[in-house]
C-alpha cells in the first residue's frame, strides 16, 4: 500500500511532466495516448488500492511521503490518508477522468492548443487527487488551489474570446472568496487543536467549544460554497461553460465541484459538534438545489441547462451533508459523476455534430442522426430525472429519505426540486432530440454526423454505469453497500434504518411520482413548442438577477470608489504633491538663478562683504 498509494497521485503528474518536457517532439496522437494512459493507470492503481483496503483491518492507512513543514509546533507532513472516503473519491475521479481524457482526444482533434489542453487536464486530475488523498488540511489546500488554477486555465482555454477570458476570471475570483473560508477554518482549528492532520483534529474535537465548532463549520461551508458552487457563490459555474465541453464534464462530474462536498464530508466529526452549523448547511443546500433548478427551466443553451442542473444536484449533496447523511451524499456524488459526465459528454457530441451550435432552439429531431449519442443520452436523462431503476432514483431517494427523517420542509423543497429536475431535463431532451429538425441553417443543409468511436465509447461506458450505479447502495443491501463501506470513516451509519420499510417505500413512490409529473408536464408543454414566454420566465433565465444584484452591491460601488480614487486621490492628492514639489523647486530656482550674473566684480564684492561680516563677528567674539 505504501508504494501503491503515491503512484495514484504521481502518475498524472508524470504525464503532465512528460508532455511538458517533450512537448515539441510528441505529436498530438502521442500526447493524447500519454495523457489518457497515465490517468488510466492511476485508475488501475486506485482499484488495486481499493482491494488492498478491503483486506485491511482498520480500513485506514497513512502513507508518509516526506516532512513538508516543521516549524515550532506546526508540523505538516506531505502524507496520504487512504480510507474508504478518499478511495471512493479516487475511484470515480480517476475513472471518470480517464473516460473524459479519452473522449477529449477526439473532441479536441485539430485544436491549435491540443497539447496545452492535455497538460492542464492532467494537472487538474493531479490537483484533485492531492486534494482528496491528503491527510491534512494544508496539503489538501495545495490540491484545492491547484484545482482552482487549473479550472481558471481550462475555462478560459479560448482566451482570445472575451466571454471565455472573463468567465475564467469570474471562476477564479469566486473560488478565491471560498478559499478565505478554508484558510479561516484552518487557522481556527490550529489555534484550538494544535494540529492540522485530519486524524489529529478528529481525536481532539473535545478541545473545540460549541461556538468555535460552529465558526469552523461556517468557514468550511463558505469554502464549500465557493468550490461546489452553492448559494451565494454559485454563479461562476454556469459561466464556466465557456470552456471546451470535456472540461465542463470534468469540472462538473469528477473534479472541482465535488471538492467542497468532499471537504464537508471529510470534516464530518467537526460537523457533528455544531447542530446550528449543520442546519445552515442543510438550508443552503436545499435552497441552492431549488433555485438552480428553477433557473435551469428557462435556459436556452444546452450546456447552461446542464450547468444549473449540476448546481442543483450538488445542492442535494450539501443538503444530505447538512442532515448528517454523509453516505447518501457520497452515493449521490458517485452516481452524479456517472450521469452528469454522460450528459455533458453527450451534449458535447451533439454540439460536435452541429459544428459548435449550443442553442437548443436550433436543434431538434437529432435522434435519427445520432444513433449512439441518442440512446446514451436517453439513459442519462432518465437517470437524472429519477426514474427507476436507474442510479439517480436510488441516490436521490437515499438523500430525500434521510432529509425526511430530519426536516420535513426541506424534504418538501427537495421533492419540488425533483419535479423541476425531471421537467427541465425532459425539456432539454425533447428540444434536442425530438420535434422538427431546426438545425439545417446551422449545418448549411448538411446532415449531422455521429461522433467518432473515441467519443461514443465513453458515452456507452457511462450509460452502463448510470444504469447499474444504483447497485452501489440499494436500500436493502446493508452489508454490501457504499454506506456500509464508508461507515468506518464516519464512525456511524446514517440513521436510515430507523425508518420502517413501509415509509421508505412510500417515500420512494413520492420520488417516482415527482419524476413522472415533471416528465409529463415537460412533454405536454414542449412537444410542439420551441420558445415560450409563459414557461421561460426572464427572471429565471437571468439567474434570479443574481449577477445584477452583485453588480449593484459590489461591482458598481467599487467602480465608483475606483473612480473617486482616480479623480481625487490620484489626480489631486498624489499628483498634486508630486507636481507641487517639482513646481516649487522650479520656482525657487527661477529666483535664485538671478544671483549668478556672470559679473566677476559682483562676486568679488559679495566675497569681500562676506569676509567683512566674518571678521566683524570674530573680532566681536574676541572682545
Amino acid at each position, binding site marked *: 500500500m505504501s508504494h501503491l498509494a503515491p503512484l495514484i497521485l504521481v502518475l498524472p503528474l508524470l504525464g503532465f511532466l512528460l508532455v511538458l518536457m517533450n512537448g515539441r517532439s510528441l505529436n498530438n496522437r502521442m500526447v493524447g495516448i500519454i495523457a489518457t494512459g497515465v490517468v488510466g493507470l492511476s485508475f488501475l492503481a486506485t482499484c488495486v488500492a481499493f482491494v488492498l483496503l478491503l483486506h485491511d483491518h482498520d480500513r485506514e492507512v497513512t502513507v508518509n511521503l516526506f516532512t513538508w513543514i516543521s516549524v515550532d509546533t506546526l508540523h505538516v507532513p506531505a502524507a496520504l490518508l487512504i480510507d474508504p472516503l478518499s478511495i471512493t473519491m479516487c475511484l470515480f475521479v480517476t475513472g471518470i477522468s480517464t473516460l473524459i481524457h479519452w473522449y477529449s482526444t477526439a473532441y479536441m482533434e485539430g485544436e491549435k492548443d491540443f497539447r496545452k489542453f492535455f497538460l492542464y487536464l492532467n494537472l487538474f486530475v493531479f490537483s484533485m487527487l492531492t486534494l482528496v488523498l491528503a491527510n491534512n488540511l494544508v496539503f489538501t489546500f495545495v490540491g484545492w488551489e491547484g484545482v482552482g488554477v487549473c479550472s481558471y486555465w481550462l475555462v478560459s482555454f479560448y482566451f482570445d474570446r472575451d466571454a471565455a477570458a472573463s468567465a475564467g476570471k469570474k471562476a477564479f475570483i469566486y473560488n478565491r472568496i471560498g478559499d478565505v473560508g478554508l484558510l479561516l477554518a484552518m487557522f481556527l482549528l490550529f489555534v484550538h487543536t494544535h494540529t492540522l492532520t485530519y486524524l489529529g483534529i478528529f481525536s481532539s474535537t473535545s478541545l473545540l467549544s460549541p461556538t468555535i465548532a460552529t465558526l469552523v463549520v461556517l468557514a468550511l461551508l463558505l469554502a464549500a460554497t465557493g468550490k461546489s458552487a452553492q448559494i451565494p457563490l454559485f454563479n461562476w459555474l454556469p459561466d464556466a461553460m465557456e470552456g471546451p465541453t470535456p472540461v465542463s464534464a470534468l469540472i462538473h462530474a469528477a473534479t472541482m465541484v465535488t471538492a467542497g462536498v468532499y471537504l464537508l464530508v471529510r470534516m464530518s466529526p467537526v460537523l457533528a459538534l455544531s447542530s446550528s452549523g449543520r442546519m445552515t448547511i442543510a438550508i443552503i443546500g436545499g435552497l441552492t438545489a431549488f433555485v438552480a433548478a428553477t433557473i435551469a427551466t428557462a435556459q436556452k443553451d444546452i450546456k447552461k441547462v446542464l450547468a444549473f442542473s449540476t448546481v442543483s444536484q450538488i445542492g442535494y449533496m450539501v443538503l444530505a451533508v447538512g442532515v448528517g447523511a454523509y453516505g447518501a451524499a457520497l452515493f449521490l456524488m458517485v452516481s452524479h459523476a456517472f450521469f452528469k459526465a454522460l450528459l455533458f459528454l453527450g451534449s458535447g457530441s451533439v454540439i460536435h455534430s452541429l459544428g459548435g451550435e449550443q442553442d437548443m432552439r436550433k436543434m431538434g429531431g437529432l435522434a435519427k442522426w445520432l444513433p449512439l449519442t441518442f440512446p446514451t443520452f436517453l439513459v442519462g436523462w432518465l437517470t437524472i430525472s429519477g426514474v427507476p431503476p436507474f442510479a439517480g432514483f436510488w441516490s436521490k431517494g437515499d438523500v430525500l429519505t434521510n432529509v425526511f427523517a430530519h426536516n420535513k420542509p426541506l424534504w418538501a423543497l427537495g421533492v419540488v426540486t425533483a419535479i423541476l429536475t425531471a421537467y427541465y431535463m425532459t425539456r432539454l431532451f425533447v428540444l434536442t432530440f425530438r420535434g422538427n429538425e431546426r438545425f439545417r441553417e446551422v449545418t448549411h443543409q448538411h446532415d449531422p454526423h455521429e461522433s467518432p468511436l473515441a467519443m461514443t465509447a465513453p458515452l456507452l461506458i457511462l450509460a452502463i454505469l448510470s444504469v447499474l450505479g444504483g447497485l452501489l447502495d440499494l436500500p436493502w443491501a446493508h452489508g454490501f453497500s457504499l454506506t456500509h463501506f464508508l461507515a468506518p470513516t464516519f464512525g456511524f451509519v446514517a440513521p436510515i434504518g430507523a425508518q420502517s420499510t413501509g415509509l421508505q417505500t412510500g417515500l420512494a413512490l413520492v420520488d417516482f411520482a415527482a419524476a413522472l409529473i415533471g416528465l409529463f408536464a415537460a412533454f405536454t408543454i414542449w412537444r410542439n413548442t420551441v420558445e415560450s414566454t409563459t414557461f421561460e420566465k426572464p427572471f429565471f433565465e437571468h439567474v434570479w438577477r443574481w449577477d445584477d444584484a452583485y453588480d449593484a452591491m459590489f461591482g458598481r460601488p467599487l467602480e465608483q470608489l475606483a473612480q473617486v480614487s482616480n479623480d481625487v486621490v490620484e489626480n489631486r492628492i498624489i499628483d498634486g504633491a508630486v507636481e507641487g514639489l517639482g513646481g516649487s523647486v522650479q520656482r525657487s530656482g527661477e529666483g535664485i538663478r538671478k*544671483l549668478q*550674473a556672470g559679473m566677476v566684480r559682483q562676486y568679488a564684492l559679495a566675497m569681500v562683504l562676506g569676509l567683512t561680516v566674518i571678521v566683524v563677528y570674530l573680532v566681536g567674539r574676541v572682545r
Partner: protein
Amino acid sequence: MTIPASWFLVLAALLFGVGAFGVLTRRSALIMFMCIELMLNAVNLTFVTFARSLSDIGGQTTVFFIMVVAAAEVTVGLGIVVAVFRRRESTSVDELSELQG
C-alpha cells in the same frame, strides 16, 4: 631700534584695502590681477610679522607656499587673459558675463 609689529600690520591692512578696492572697481583683468597680487602679499606681510613677533617659523613657511601658489595662479590666469584678449580685443571682465543664470 625695532619697529613695532603694529606698524607692519597697519601697512599690510592698507595694502590689502588698496588691493580689494582695485579688484572691486577696475574692469581690466590685468589690473585686477595685480590687485589680487597686492592682497596676497599684504597677507604674506602679516604672516611674516607674526612669525617674527611670536618666534614661530610656521608663518614664514606658509608665505613660501603662498608665493608658489600665487606664481602658478598668475601663470594660468595670464594665459587665460591672453587667450581672451586674442578673441575679443578687450580685457574688460564686465564683458565676460556669458556664464550667467
